[in-house]
């Protein structure tokens, strides 16, 4: 039973079989290598290596870290999207005599990696990126509480993103036990390959990054708000982020522990979740969903916050009933801990337990409805401007209410026994995640000028929006229907007599529409970049915004605020503009010295060593794991001795940069 018994002292479990030899591992490896070579060539040709290192890789500036998050998430979205397309096309083809183009095992790996990549590396990455870019500006601070930890968080996330794709190059097969690696299927006995180990360590690396990020943002929001910004004067995006990060710090440790325990089963031959020696499988399922349910709200709360900002800005009104919006977000945070069992009503916990969790699940609809109604009432009587973010917002409202209704239906244990693990469930949670994705698109189109200095192209944006909205319904309405017809999820093949094929084909067509929508998004970026002079945001306040991020230039100077803003009300910038309408606040009376964090490569080094350790543990290379761990610890110790981590930007320099910027504007 000991998994160590067949390992080589140097290569561990690795053999020549681990090298790419299947069409998709060879293809994946070739694609990644060519991309890497291309990037390296461009960097060498234009002598940009030093620039890349100094300005980006070692940066502790949240504005740059945020952009790096967005880049990694976009790449991962491409990767996860390919997975989705392969699945839907396989399902459209593989009825009756046709087996489609994917083997059953490959299909299982695809749905596993699709789920993990979309949740951990797309949705989480986009939100952390936007929070890095916008949150400090909104609460009137220059930086996060711990700039170095922020850099480390990003690099752990990036290491996790690379790690989940590493099996293409070394390993040959990914986990094939669903995105949460359910036991006992994910135990060594049934999944003897390294796929599950790659899954586990990818989640541990990125999960540690998320956890550190959560702590960082909580301390930032609690401790670093501008003078005068009380908690009840915070913008709703900051509130939503705070709630989301509270969920991160209380839910992600559960994931860390659960995945670590599963890995102990596999690595040391423990019997925590095995089906013999007294292990308890439902313990794992409980733990993973104790994280998994709050995770849903971790993803959706920041989207809510963004929509609150957007709907208020474009309705030219204060948000309707701010206090109840905060209350709803806090209530969602609390109730999200109390509903995890609805993911497995069929476990057999009995009618009373299921009843309580079913009722708790339905309670979630109340704060959600409070938010939706408050958004609608904010628009009522407002002078609504239909800019691009509003399109995404309206689309989100439709989708989210639709998916929410399906969720309330699933929350009834009796209905759930029929719909458990059917495509109805799959369609439901994709609807909710799509709401979060619409939030990401809305947020990016809202804040893009703040990040890049020019606005996004509206025409291509609207095309993208309509393609996404239509594509979404064409993909998922058939899946809801199939679920009612009894189609279970994760089928790579089904009998033709079921009559499901036309609906699966419709879903595949919907996917193609979504691909066109993604193409439109890329076109939007290209078109915006080409017309960047025309779209240039000169004022820093293109939407007549209400919160502090619009009070600084677009993009902001690296120190953001020349002088710390004074907050006198809930809509700090709006009120400042009203008080001094001509400028929105001229140059401050005097400048002070600013303490700025220095760049450091330590985040990159520590993640590199952590990556190496994880890789060694996947392959049971004990010596390499020791080496990696020693390296990571050494880096942490070296960092703890570093004293020169900050520098002072003199007031005179700030005054000079500010004066130059003003001259540039005029």
């Amino acid at each position, binding site marked *: 039973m000991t998994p160590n018994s067949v390992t080589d002292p140097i290569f561990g479990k690795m053999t020549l079989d681990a090298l790419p030899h299947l069409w998709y591992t060879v293809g994946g490896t070739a694609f990644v290598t060519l991309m890497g070579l291309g990037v390296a060539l461009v960097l060498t040709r234009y002598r940009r290596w030093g620039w890349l290192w100094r300005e980006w890789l070692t940066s502790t500036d949240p504005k740059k870290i945020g952009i790096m998050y967005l880049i990694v998430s976009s790449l991962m979205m491409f990767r996860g999207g390919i997975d989705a397309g392969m699945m839907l096309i396989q399902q459209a083809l593989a009825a009756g005599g046709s087996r489609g183009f994917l083997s059953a095992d490959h299909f299982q790996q695809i749905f596993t990696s699709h789920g993990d990549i979309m949740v951990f590396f797309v949705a989480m990455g986009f939100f952390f990126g936007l929070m890095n870019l916008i949150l400090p500006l909104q609460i009137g601070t220059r930086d996060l*509480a711990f700039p170095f930890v922020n850099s480390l968080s990003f690099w752990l996330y990036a290491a996790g993103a690379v790690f989940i794709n590493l099996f293409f190059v070394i390993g040959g097969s990914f986990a094939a036990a669903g995105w949460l690696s359910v036991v006992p299927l994910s135990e060594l006995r049934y999944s003897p390959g390294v796929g599950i180990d790659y899954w586990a360590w990818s989640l541990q690396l990125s999960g540690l990054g998320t956890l550190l990020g959560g702590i960082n943002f909580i301390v930032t929001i609690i401790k670093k708000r501008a003078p005068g910004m009380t908690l009840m004067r915070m913008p709703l995006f900051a509130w939503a982020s705070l709630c989301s990060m509270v969920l991160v710090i209380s839910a992600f440790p559960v994931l860390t522990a659960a995945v670590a*325990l599963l890995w102990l089963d596999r690595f040391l031959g*423990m019997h*925590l979740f*095995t089906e013999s*020696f*007294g292990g*308890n499988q439902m313990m794992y399922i409980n733990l993973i969903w104790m994280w998994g349910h709050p995770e849903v709200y971790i993803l959706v709360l920041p989207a809510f916050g963004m929509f609150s900002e957007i709907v208020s800005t474009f309705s030219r009104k204060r948000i309707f009933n701010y206090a109840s919006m905060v209350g709803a977000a806090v209530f969602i945070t609390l109730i999200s801990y109390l509903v995890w069992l609805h993911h497995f009503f069929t476990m057999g916990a009995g009618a009373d337990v299921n009843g309580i969790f079913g009722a708790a699940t339905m309670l979630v609809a109340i704060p959600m409805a409070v938010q939706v109604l408050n958004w609608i009432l904010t628009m009522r009587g407002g002078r609504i401007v239909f800019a691009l973010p509003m399109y995404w917002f309206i689309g989100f409202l439709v989708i989210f209410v639709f998916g929410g209704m399906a969720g309330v239906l699933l929350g009834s244990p009796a209905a759930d026994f029929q719909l458990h693990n059917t495509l109805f469930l799959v369609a439901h949670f994709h609807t909710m995640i799509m709401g979060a994705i619409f939030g990401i698109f809305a947020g990016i189109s809202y804040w893009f000028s703040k990040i890049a200095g020019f606005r996004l192209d509206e025409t291509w944006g609207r095309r993208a929006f309509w393609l996404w909205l239509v594509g979404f319904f064409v993909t998922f309405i058939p899946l809801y229907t199939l679920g009612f017809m009894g189609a279970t999820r994760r089928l790579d093949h089904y009998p033709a007599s079921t009559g499901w094929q036309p609906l699966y084909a419709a879903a595949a067509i919907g996917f193609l529409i979504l691909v066109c929508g993604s193409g439109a998004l890329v076109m939007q970026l290209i078109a915006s970049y080409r017309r960047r002079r025309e779209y240039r945001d000169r004022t820093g306040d293109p939407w007549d915004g209400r919160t502090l991020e619009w009070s600084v230039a677009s993009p902001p100077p690296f120190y953001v605020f020349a002088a710390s803003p004074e907050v006198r009300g809930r809509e700090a910038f709006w009120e400042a503009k009203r008080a001094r309408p001509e400028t929105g606040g001229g140059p401050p009376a005097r400048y002070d010295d600013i*303490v700025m964090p220095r760049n450091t490569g330590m985040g990159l080094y520590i993640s590199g060593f952590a990556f190496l350790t994880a890789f060694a543990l996947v392959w049971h290379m004990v010596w390499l794991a020791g080496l990696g761990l020693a390296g990571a610890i050494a880096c942490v110790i070296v960092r703890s001795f570093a004293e020169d981590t900050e520098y002072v930007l003199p007031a005179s320099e700030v005054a000079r940069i500010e004066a130059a910027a003003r001259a540039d504007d005029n």
Partner: protein
Amino acid sequence: MENIATAGEDDSLFGFWVYLMTDLVIFAVLFATFTVLRNNTFGGPSGRELFSLPSAVTETLLLLTSSFTCGLAAVAFRRGVRTRAIIWFAVTFALGAAFLARELGEFSGLAAAGAGWQRSAFLSSFFALVGAHGLHIAVGLLWMAVVMVQIWFRGLSAAVVSKAARLALFWHFLDVVWIFIFSVVYLMSRLV
């Protein structure tokens, strides 16, 4: 300038509290797993047969005393008495190392008696929970060594005191977790 510096240290202490809460959640999961699996001995030895209460009491006394000496070190570094801070940290280190040595001794004794982590779900969860605590103690000892070196060479600067304060917090936290381990793992094995 000085305000900014002290505010930074205050932030890191607050951040460390938040981190401790996340670690507490990890231990909560391990405790829950142990409690669910503690009777799943699969025909193997139970806690009642395996655990020696006097040995666990000795470990507890070592760790509780180390928490007390860690408190004495905290009094010293807050008053700026450098040598005394190092001495008390050294005593804490010795007690912590003695605890860890005893724990590792207990583990190897169990493994030698055929009660390793592969024997039953109960033993797996025992090693996972108590091992995780031991791992934390090892990290704490390494950290303590670094802090002692920094106090020795750098003196009690604001940054070093902040680091030492966080270490003390960590050490007391591990003590609290151990009290629960002593109760839930060792004492309760006598009850059932």
